[in-house]
Every structure is written in structure tokens, then in C-alpha cells.
């Protein structure tokens, strides 16, 4: 008697869950490895707040609380670091032969990629929450439940974008040496936005860059609850930008995954 094979979707989901569990185990077994990813955005948050806090005195600044203004930037930065780290870990797995073993498995390539990307997305909530708690302690304003949910969605999706970017580079260069490119790329994408000051107060060249940078919409959506009220007009561009980035970088990462030979 032949056993009925499990439906493909269920097998794929189980594979993604297993890959996410592996990432979680890494975190539980080597908690120290997560510290830099949590520390870096926290230090940036506290540092930027202490250094540039006086910027709120400039005419045209939309809030008097710099910690409220900067906290979404640091949360997105944490997501960027976490996503890039997923790329570095993939490169390490390739160097150690683990990716080869995954590639000879019957799991579809997109499932292998999805496991890595979703794990990064889930992991990004740790630095985001840590930074947010610190921000509340030092006086950041409550963004409202809707503002908070939108902010977390932006963080998780940004981590997924960063993980696609990191995975693409990891599979292209097949070496952890590409780590600076993964991190610098995300850092540039997140910070070439109205990260430090509102658009109107940026230098003209950065204002132009920020206007075409899709992450500006993401940051504005994540920030809206912290500096004012939540509106649909400030929310949907963020989701569209992230969907576009995910489609673009996800397909490029998948292409690299398909090109990777055992």
C-alpha cells in the first residue's frame, strides 16, 4: 500500500518553518551573536539623540521631541542590520557547505529563500522592540496602537527587503567578504531619507535623493504616529514602496539562488 504524499504547499510550509526554527535556534544557542544587531541601532539612537537633539529648535521641525522623530529610523536601522546579517549568515553557510546540502534537497529554491527572509523578518522585531523601549524610557511619545502596528509592519518588511538584498549578494559573491556591501547598501538606503531632519530642512542634494528613495515613504509611514496622527495618505506609499522593493530584490535573490550550482 502506498502512503499518500503530503500536499506540496504543506511540505513547503514545513520547510520554511524548519529553516526559521534553525535561525531561532542559532539565536537561542549563541545569544551573543544577536548583541551587535541590537546594540548598534540602540547606540545610534542614543548617540543621535544626544548629539543632534538641538535640531528640533530649527524652524520647520515638525516635533519638539527628537527622540520621537529618530526612533523609527533606529528601528528600521535595526531591521537593516538584521536583514544584512541574514545575508552574511547565508554566505557563511555556503562557505561551510550547508547551502550545498539544502540545494540537493527536493525543496524549491523559493522556499529556501523564503525561510531565510522570513527568519530575518521575525528576528528584526528584537532590536526594534529594544530600541523602542529605550526610547519610551527617555521620553519618546506613544504613537498610538495603529501607529505602532504600522511601524512594526514597516520594520518587519524592511528586514525582509534587507535579507533579500543580503541573500542576493551572498549567493553572488559566495563569501562573507561581501558583508560590508550588504551592510553599507542597507545603511545608505535607510539613511538617505529624511532620517535626521524633515525633508524641507535637508540640504538640496539630499532632498532630491530622499524624494526618489523608496525608503523615504517607508520611514514616513513608520514615523507618522510618533510625530503626529496616523493617516492612510502617509501609510499606503510605505506599503507600495516595500512591495516594490520586495518584488525586485526577491526576484533578483531568487535568480541568484537558481543560478547557484552544487
Amino acid at each position, binding site marked *: 500500500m502506498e502512503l499518500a504524499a503530503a500536499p506540496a504547499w504543506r511540505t513547503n510550509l514545513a520547510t520554511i518553518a524548519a529553516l526559521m526554527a534553525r535561525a531561532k535556534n542559532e539565536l537561542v544557542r549563541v545569544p551573543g551573536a544577536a548583541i551587535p544587531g541590537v546594540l548598534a541601532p540602540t547606540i545610534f539612537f542614543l*548617540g543621535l539623540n*544626544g548629539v543632534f537633539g538641538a535640531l528640533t529648535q530649527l524652524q520647520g521641525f515638525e516635533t519638539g521631541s527628537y527622540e520621537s522623530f529618530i526612533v523609527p529610523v533606529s528601528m528600521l536601522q535595526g531591521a537593516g542590520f538584521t536583514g544584512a546579517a541574514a545575508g552574511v549568515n547565508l554566505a557563511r553557510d555556503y562557505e561551510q557547505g550547508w547551502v550545498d546540502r539544502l540545494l540537493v534537497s527536493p525543496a524549491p529554491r523559493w522556499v529556501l529563500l523564503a525561510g531565510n527572509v522570513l527568519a530575518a523578518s521575525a528576528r528584526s522585531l528584537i532590536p526594534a522592540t529594544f530600541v523602542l523601549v529605550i526610547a519610551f524610557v527617555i521620553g519618546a511619545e506613544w504613537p498610538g496602537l495603529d501607529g505602532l502596528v504600522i511601524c512594526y509592519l514597516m520594520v518587519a518588511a524592511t528586514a525582509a527587503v534587507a535579507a533579500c538584498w543580503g541573500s542576493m549578494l551572498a549567493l553572488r559573491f559566495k563569501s562573507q567578504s561581501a558583508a560590508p556591501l550588504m551592510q*553599507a547598501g542597507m545603511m*545608505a538606503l535607510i539613511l538617505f531619507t529624511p532620517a535626521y531632519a524633515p525633508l524641507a530642512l535637508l540640504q538640496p542634494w539630499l532632498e532630491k535623493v530622499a524624494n526618489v528613495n523608496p525608503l523615504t515613504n517607508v520611514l514616513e509611514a513608520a514615523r507618522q504616529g510618533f510625530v503626529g496622527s496616523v493617516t492612510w495618505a502617509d501609510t499606503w506609499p510605505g506599503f507600495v514602496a516595500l512591495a516594490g522593493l520586495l518584488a525586485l530584490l526577491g526576484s533578483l535573490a531568487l535568480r541568484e539562488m537558481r543560478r547557484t550550482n552544487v
Partner: protein
Amino acid sequence: MSDLAKSARVVRALGARSIRQTFRRPQLLAPIVVFPTLLLAIQTGGAGASIELPGFPPVQSFLQFMLAGSMMQSMMLAGNSGGIAFAVDIEMGFTDRLFAAPIPRFAIVLGRLAGTAALGLFASLWFLAIGLVFGAEIEGGVPGALLAIVLITASALAVGGIGAAIALRTGSASVVQGLFPLVLVVLFLSSAFFPQELMIEPAKTIAKYNPLSFIVEGVREPIISGIDATQTLEAVAAIAGIVILGLVLSSRALKHRLRVG
């Protein structure tokens, strides 16, 4: 050949090796060049309007003000990268082979520090070039630029001493790498990126006593207004303090390394 000349040859060879190592490995070069340059662009573009704040020192542009901070950041990260590379050498047994060679032990550490100082020199030239290309003026002229270069190179040597001491003591690249966030903390708690008077508490008070603030002001002054003897001397004193601390720590760590092998 005299003993001194022999030691100088060793220092030169090891220094050249450490520079080549940095330029061959993007992981080591990126923190020295890529990240500080990116941050300089972002902070200049993002916080450029801050020069209109009451109390901001008179400057031609925020880029001119920021150059010293970027040089400091790059120099500090060069010291950290030097420490990481030194620890990798210890992990891989290269340092053990040097210890077994008929060369003075201090030359091994000095060789690494010479490489770090050269990277500090490179960082100062890189950021001065960026400043000049994007229109920042060096108010102190050529002597001012030279003073900034000398102070940054000497600071790299000083900070590299602490990185080398930690590498020798721990023998672990990941421990030295773990100091990266600390480098950022020390930088943020100095006047590297903003005038100390305009920072908010407690960063303002900490920056007032942070030795890095004295160095950065010594480097900044020739760029934004001209050479100032008092600030230069304060910067030299701060560098001397870090050099002495690095020497003491390195000497103790070297003894420890030789004892434990």
C-alpha cells in the same frame, strides 16, 4: 647592521604587511573608508541646517565642521580594525612564529601600530580630499592641513595601541570586533559630530571631559578657523595620554601573551 636598524626593518615590513592586509580585505577597509564616508554624506545632508542654530561656531558649511569628526571616526575604526587583524594573526599562529623569530618583541607590536598609523594618515588625506572636492575650505591653509594630518596619524597610533593590547590580552578577533559598538559610543559622547555646547545632557557633560573631544577640537580648529596653540596643545596632551595608556596596556598584555603562549 645595528640593532636599531634591524628593528626598524622589522617594523617597516610588518607595517607594510598590515597595510596590504587591510586593502586586500574589504571587511577591514570598509569600516575605515566606506562607513565614515557614508555617514559624512548623510550627516552633512541631513543636519546641514544646524549651522543656523544659535551658538553654532562660525563655519563656512557643516561639511567643513564635520571633516574632523569623520577623520576621527575613520581613525578610531582603523585602530579597531588593526586590533582585529592582530588578533587574527594570534589565532592563526602567525604571531607565535614572530615570537620565535630573532626579533625584538616590541617590534612586533610596533609593526602593527605603524600599519594602523599609516591607515590614520590615509584616512586624514581621504577626508581632506573629500572636503576640498566638495568645496570645504581649510582656513589654516597648508600648515593647518598638515597639523590635522599629523594629529590624526598620531591618534591612530595611540588608539591602535589600545586595540593591540586587547588583541594581545584576549587573542580573540571576535572580542576585539565586539568593541566596535564601544568605539561608536565613545565617538558619540564627544564633540566629533556636533558642538559640545549644543549637545543635550548627559552627552554634553561627558563630551566635555572625553579626551577625544580635545583631539577632535585640535583637528577641527585649523580647518574651520586656523591654528590655535592652546587647542593644539590640549590635543597633543590627550594623544600623549592615550599613547601612555596604550603602552602600559600593551606591555602588560605582551607579557601575558608570552606567558600563556
